[in-house]
């Protein structure tokens, strides 16, 4: 059996590994991940293991964010020191969890239960967890209608969205400009917030397109993109720190 441990405290990983070594010698820990980002990356690249042990508080945020960003096809056993809300949800949905300090007997019990779950029951368990933390599907491809043609534009290729004369335009990284029927507010809802930022009323910018920030009078900032924009993208004083946080976020 293969297992993955998702946990940010070094000592907690060592504790769980030592317990598993004792109670389930046939179980092999094939990866230890300590952040949401590392977990999502790993799960996208590898075959999913037979079991995942997952702490709720990870180094870069709560582990529930992993479910929002990728599908986990393995049964998950949660571990937590204390989290009343989560425990309540686990109990209601009969999802297995281990309280820290972890008791070896509880691990034996949880593993035995999963071992005896038949195929459909196992799928059902995985689905119950997935339902608890629905995956957020952000827009990957924007469809642009141009006369009788529909052009798919990958959001990765988009430098910014802007409004002008009550119409919304899309500017791609190779300087092509399209018109879209979607409003900036609607786009704000469906674009991945780690990749796109609402700079002001007229602009949504892509992180990849940000070239530099220029300081303007009154602690305002002017955002310069890799592509040319018709207007300056001004960031109000109030939103400067939010912008910087978005830019430095480790995603």
């Amino acid at each position, binding site marked *: 059996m293969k297992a993955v441990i998702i946990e940010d405290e070094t*000592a*907690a990983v060592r504790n769980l590994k*030592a317990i598993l070594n004792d109670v389930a010698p046939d179980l092999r820990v094939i990866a230890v991940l300590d952040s949401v980002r590392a977990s999502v990356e790993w799960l996208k690249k590898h075959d999913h293991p037979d079991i995942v042990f997952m702490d709720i508080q990870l180094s870069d945020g709560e582990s529930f964010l992993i479910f929002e960003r990728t599908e986990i096809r393995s049964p998950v056993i949660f571990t937590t020191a204390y989290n009343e809300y989560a425990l309540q949800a686990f109990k209601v949905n009969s999802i297995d969890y281990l309280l820290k*300090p972890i008791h070896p007997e509880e691990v034996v019990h949880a593993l035995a239960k999963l071992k005896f779950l038949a195929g459909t029951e196992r799928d059902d368990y995985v689905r119950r967890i997935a339902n608890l933390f629905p995956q957020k599907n952000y827009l990957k491809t924007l469809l642009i209608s141009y006369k009788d043609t529909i052009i798919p534009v990958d959001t990765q290729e988009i430098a910014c969205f802007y409004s002008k004369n009550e119409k919304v335009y899309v500017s791609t990284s190779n300087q092509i400009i399209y018109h879209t029927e979607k409003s900036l507010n609607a786009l704000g809802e469906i674009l991945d917030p780690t990749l796109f930022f609402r700079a002001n009323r007229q602009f949504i910018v892509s992180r990849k397109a940000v070239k530099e920030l220029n300081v303007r009078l009154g602690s305002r900032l002017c955002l310069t993109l890799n592509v040319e924009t018709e207007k300056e993208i001004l960031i109000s004083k109030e939103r400067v720190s939010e912008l910087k946080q978005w830019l430095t976020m480790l995603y």
Partner: protein
Amino acid sequence: MLVTDFPRQGFRLNGINMFKTIFAGIIAVLYGLIIMLVYRQQQMKIENERLKTENLQATYNVLTAQINPHFFFNSLNALSALVREQQNEVSLKYINELSDIFRYVLSSNNKTLVALQQELSFLNAYRYMLEIRYENKLFFDIHIDEKYLQYLLPVLSFQPVIENIIKHNVISEENPLTIHIYITGEEKLAISNPVRPKFGYRENTGIGLKNLTDRYRLLLSKSILIENDDRVFTVKLPIVEKSPTP
């Protein structure tokens, strides 16, 4: 005669009335002043009471935050690891440090200002545990000149600042975090860290820091300084050579 007397009497009456009016006015103003003074004094009393309650609340919050279940169980979980690995010496030291932490916290409710030295020995115990829990991920870099060791600051000043840092920043293998502690030119105790926001945390100053601000105001009539240039987050705590005379 009678007729001519009337206005004169009326005038005299008016004069008396005016005098009475002015007198009454002065009395009223005086009363007003007295009432205002009494009111102000009462307001000050209320304010003082409020600050006292806030201090109690702040101390209480620090206590509950320190012995919060998360901290408690995670600490024990790490200890389990040490025991399971049969690291006897380390386990014993860990138990001692953990006991020191709890003892310091429990005795803090009848302390107000303490010497920096005491806070530093608490910090060392706290640091020992955190460096085991986050081995190879969390580091401390402490530079305090000996001459500041007897300076005073409110009890449990370090704890909320460190907890705030751990709560809001990424501490991972890929991004280890070092907390720097030093004395600034203006004789302030600085605790700083590189800013690495966790996902989903917008606010950068927590309740812990607000409590500390309140306690500083109450105990030293000073404010703590929080600087954040989006790259480095620094909390500067005033330290004093002598206890202020009340």
